């Protein structure tokens, strides 16, 4: 004697079948992309592994493939991203804290909010034009690492602010009330409770934003980043390279040998 009737059993089986089909579909999608990645990695590794050595990492670009390296690209990227982090994280997180915790809600606040959201959707090349006009020309920072970092910071600030605000909003009001009821000021409440509780969320936003900055090339083309740097002049802030950028355009000459140069580069990247 079964627990359920025959028609109920049929319905139940149908529901179970749907669940199985959906879970298989999800698994297929996941594994096919993993497989694709594995194939690509294998292909790159098979050709590029021979080029992977310290010399490749520690040499400047060169006209001769066997002497060429990615030192300036790596160093430039690290410089750029560190500067971007230094500029954008404090400004972005502070702005988010101000908008969420301190600013009085009102028309002005709403206006700022809408504008930040819009800025997050502006194409990166537009930031490049802005950077060119504003930092390179107006502030006369020239085509420097600093103008590049400032432009990139502008680009990712909206993302950091929006992500941080979302993270701050997830902190329950009851925690704030608890702190206030103990005679804490806004600042003490924010610093001791709101910020630590929203920290993981803020970090997620910051990492996503920085990874966008590290992969972004268009704004740097606009402000005139150098793509072939055979020596450093750090003092003059002239070093401005971005690693992925080099793979898109910047190879010295169309010689075939340089094509194999690409693969170890990807491997490092």
């Amino acid at each position, binding site marked *: 004697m079964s627990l359920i009737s025959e028609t109920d059993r049929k319905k139940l089986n149908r529901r179970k079948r749907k669940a199985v089909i959906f879970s298989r579909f999800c698994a297929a999608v996941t594994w096919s992309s993993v497989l694709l990645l594995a194939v690509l990695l294998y292909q790159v590794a098979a050709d590029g592994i021979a080029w992977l050595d310290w010399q490749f990492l520690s040499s400047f670009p060169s006209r001769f493939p066997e002497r060429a390296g990615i030192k300036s690209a790596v160093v430039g990227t690290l410089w750029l991203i560190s500067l971007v982090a230094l500029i954008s994280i404090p400004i972005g997180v502070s702005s988010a804290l101000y908008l969420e915790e301190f600013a009085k809600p009102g028309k002005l606040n709403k206006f700022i909010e809408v504008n930040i959201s819009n800025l997050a959707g502006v194409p990166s090349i537009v930031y490049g034009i802005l950077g060119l006009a504003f930092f390179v020309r107006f502030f006369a920072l020239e085509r420097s690492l600093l103008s590049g970092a400032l432009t990139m910071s502008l680009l990712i600030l909206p993302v950091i602010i929006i992500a941080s605000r979302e993270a701050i909003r997830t902190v329950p009001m009851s925690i704030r009330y608890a702190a206030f*009821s103990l005679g804490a000021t806004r600042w003490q409440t924010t610093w001791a409770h709101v910020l630590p509780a929203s920290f993981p969320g803020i970090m997620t936003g910051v990492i996503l934003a920085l990874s966008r900055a590290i992969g972004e090339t268009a704004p740097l083309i606009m402000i005139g980043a150098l793509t072939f740097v055979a020596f450093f002049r750090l003092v003059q802030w002239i070093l401005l390279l971005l690693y992925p950028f080099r793979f898109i355009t910047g190879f010295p000459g169309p010689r075939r040998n340089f094509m194999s140069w690409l693969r170890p580069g990807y491997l490092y990247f």
Partner: protein
Amino acid sequence: MSEAVTIIEKGNVNNSSHKFTQDAALELQDVSIYYSENPAVRGVSCKFLRNKITSIIGPSGCGKSTLLRSLNRMNDFIDGVKIEGKISFGSADLYGEDVDPVEVRRRIGMVFQKPNPFPKSIYNNIAWGPSINGYEGSMDELVEQSLKQAALWDEVKDRLHGSALNLSGGQQQRLCIARGLAMDPEILLMDEPCSALDPISTAHIEDLMFELKSRYTIIIVTHNMQQASRISDYTAFMELGKLIEFGDTETVFTKPKVKRTEEYVTGRFG
């Protein structure tokens, strides 16, 4: 228990309350509170006496929580709240120009409906308040003393540095009380502190309130009329933002002066 304190109709304070002037921890005069023009509390006048437990009862939406939150200026955080009338705290006007709301909240503590410990250790939950307010004694002693006052010490003394979130709901609520007590407040406001708790935890907290009465003035909002009649010395009954009746608990529950109160406490509505 013969001192009927006040009978309030249309915001008038009964004269018999004047003999308690010395003992009033908080005195309300014709207090109205509006949420962007909608009145939530209308013309409430009463006195909360020192070292007594006063409970505020009434049907949902009668403004009792709003009134309670106005007593330590927690309403300041809600947009569009406007308050009229006067609340005296000792000789000071609670909403006076020269009164710092942070100082008010330090001296008038609050326990909330849902236990809301900080996501930190038990020790730090208690130590944080005093430390930001410049407490200069032995913090270990203060933590122990506060936890003992809240009847939680024996249960947590071996895991003071474990997360407060691992405690049960009742323990968390007692931790929140201990956290408030560590500030050594003059008044403790409790907003339905037992509504999220099981009967045993509720009994713990009620016992605790009896203990605390000798040192603190307690004002509690509760939905639970048995609780109000068990624990409080005075009871205020509110409906539609008005204070309908205020008197000693026995009178309010056994021979209320206003018919509406009788209907409520006997369970005919609400």
